[in-house]
């Protein structure tokens, strides 16, 4: 009995230690974003301060952080919707239709996931110059392969879901009713797999939101900077204005933390299901 208690104490102690290690950086952002730069360099701050508003005003003096926020939001929302919709459509094509070369074509989908993104960056930039995608946020709204992010796993994941979850007889019944193939997808298949689409959309949104190298090579117009680009420039702009810089970091991670607070269950279930296949 005592031995069991000891084991439990060790286990929970270890798990809590890892929780602290995980959360300390987040806590330090909160603490330092609410203290003045003078307080940050002259004293040890362990509790949040009351300098948030001043830090925010300083931050807004030089950089409009919300412009980056809006650009990131625009790019990520469009990329997510487009990838989610077409990902489901392609998955449906692979899951429920028979056609020549299907196995090979699906292999191409899988193989495309293995291409390291960094290898296409230079080529993408060259292509972007030719067709006017440099300094154009549209470059990041294409389905599946935007510079710096891919969403090919959406197809793989949803194909499994449609194969298992959408029965052939349901589709046949719809055909009997005179429903066209494209209508079947929009009216029957898509609603059926909505939870899976939503899960993949969360991942695609987060990946697109966090994309740094893509905008870094494609965007030089300051008005079109996305959040990660602004963040990477903050240090050169604010120099010793630590409070404002911590606040910038805080704002950049806030959106994802809020999304995670509400969707962590879907995110982890999605990861788990993806791995089981």
């Amino acid at each position, binding site marked *: 009995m005592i031995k069991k208690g000891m084991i439990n104490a060790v286990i929970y102690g270890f798990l809590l230690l890892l929780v602290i290690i995980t*959360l300390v*950086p987040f806590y330090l952002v909160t603490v330092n974003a609410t203290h003045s730069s003078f307080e940050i360099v002259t004293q040890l701050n362990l509790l949040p301060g009351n300098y948030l508003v001043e830090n925010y005003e300083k931050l807004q003096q030089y950089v409009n952080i919300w412009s980056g926020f809006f650009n990131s939001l625009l790019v990520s929302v469009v990329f997510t919707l487009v990838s989610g919709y077409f990902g489901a459509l392609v998955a449906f094509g692979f899951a429920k239709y028979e056609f020549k070369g299907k196995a090979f074509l699906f292999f191409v989908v899988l193989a495309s996931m*293995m291409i390291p993104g960094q290898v*296409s960056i230079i080529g993408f930039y060259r292509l972007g110059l030719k067709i006017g995608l440099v300094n154009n946020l549209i470059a990041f709204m294409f389905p599946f392969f935007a510079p710096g992010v891919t969403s090919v796993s959406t197809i793989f994941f949803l194909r499994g879901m449609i194969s298992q979850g959408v029965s052939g007889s349901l589709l046949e019944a719809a055909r009997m009713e005179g429903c066209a193939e494209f209508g079947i997808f929009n009216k029957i298949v898509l609603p059926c797999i909505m939870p899976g689409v939503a899960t993949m959309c969360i991942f695609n949104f987060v990946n697109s939101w966090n994309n740094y190298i893509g905008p870094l090579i494609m965007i030089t117009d300051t008005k079109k900077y996305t959040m990660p680009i602004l963040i*990477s420039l903050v240090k050169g702009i604010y120099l010793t204005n630590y409070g404002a810089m911590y606040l910038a970091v805080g704002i950049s991670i806030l959106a994802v933390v809020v999304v995670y607070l509400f969707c962590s269950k879907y995110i982890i279930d999605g990861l788990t299901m993806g791995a089981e296949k």
Partner: protein
Amino acid sequence: MKKKSINDRSRYGYLFILPFFISFVFLGLYPVLFTFSLSLQKWDGLAPESFVGLANFKRLLSDKIFFLSLWNTLRIWIISYIPQILAALLLSAIFTMYSVKGMKAFRAIYYLPNLITAASVGLLFNLLFNGNKSVVNNILQALQAEGAPFDFFNDPVFTSNLTSYIQWWMWFGYTTILVMAGITTIDRNLFDAAQIDGAGKGQTYRRITLPLIKPTIVYITITSIIGGMQLFDVPSTMSDGTGEPDKAILTVSMYLYNQGFKNHNYGYSAAISVGLFVVIGLMSILSLKAMKGKGGNNGD
């Protein structure tokens, strides 16, 4: 009649998968082939490209900085990957063998750093450690640590290991979730049988769980190699894109970015990309073979 309707429908199959292939050819394949062709050219971003044959690759093979960046990337990856997989194995063992209260909450918390913008994480750790008056130095001085304050970012070994630590911090929760997913696919009867045979928890884990989750481990390792060898965001924003001190955290991706977009040697930058592509391919094949071979020896 029936055959015709199937043929009819196969058209829709092609039609529905078309969006992927349009996107793949123009945005996936074409840029890669473009990179390959650019690696045989000289291009400064303005003047037209000129064909230079294998000159870029000759330069690459004698470029000490390229090999240094390769070694940096590999070292940062290994030092973050080994503790990552060990933590994941340990945590998944705890979570699946003991009924831990709040297991899902623990797991959700551990995964959180993986979702945060890596560029922000790099800047954050720069702010926390950089300078005599940094937050970490203030903490160390309050604890009266010997030698504090430290000039952390003047120490190549420390900076490299800090990068590995950040990568570990960002990825151990993710790896744990994948290992646990692998464990849940194992037939429960095997565990019951082991228990009846009197096997202890540790023994069951070593003899049954570990061998059976090998495919998951292989998957995690290969995706981790592909991601880890392309490491860019954290070391870049942590060192203002320089990879300093002593180029200790200059990764291959940072080097190719600097060669292309800072020095405007796009052809050479493309050659570095091709070099990285080859290295990642070789490492993936080697680790796949190594782990498959090991599986053959241990297999029953």
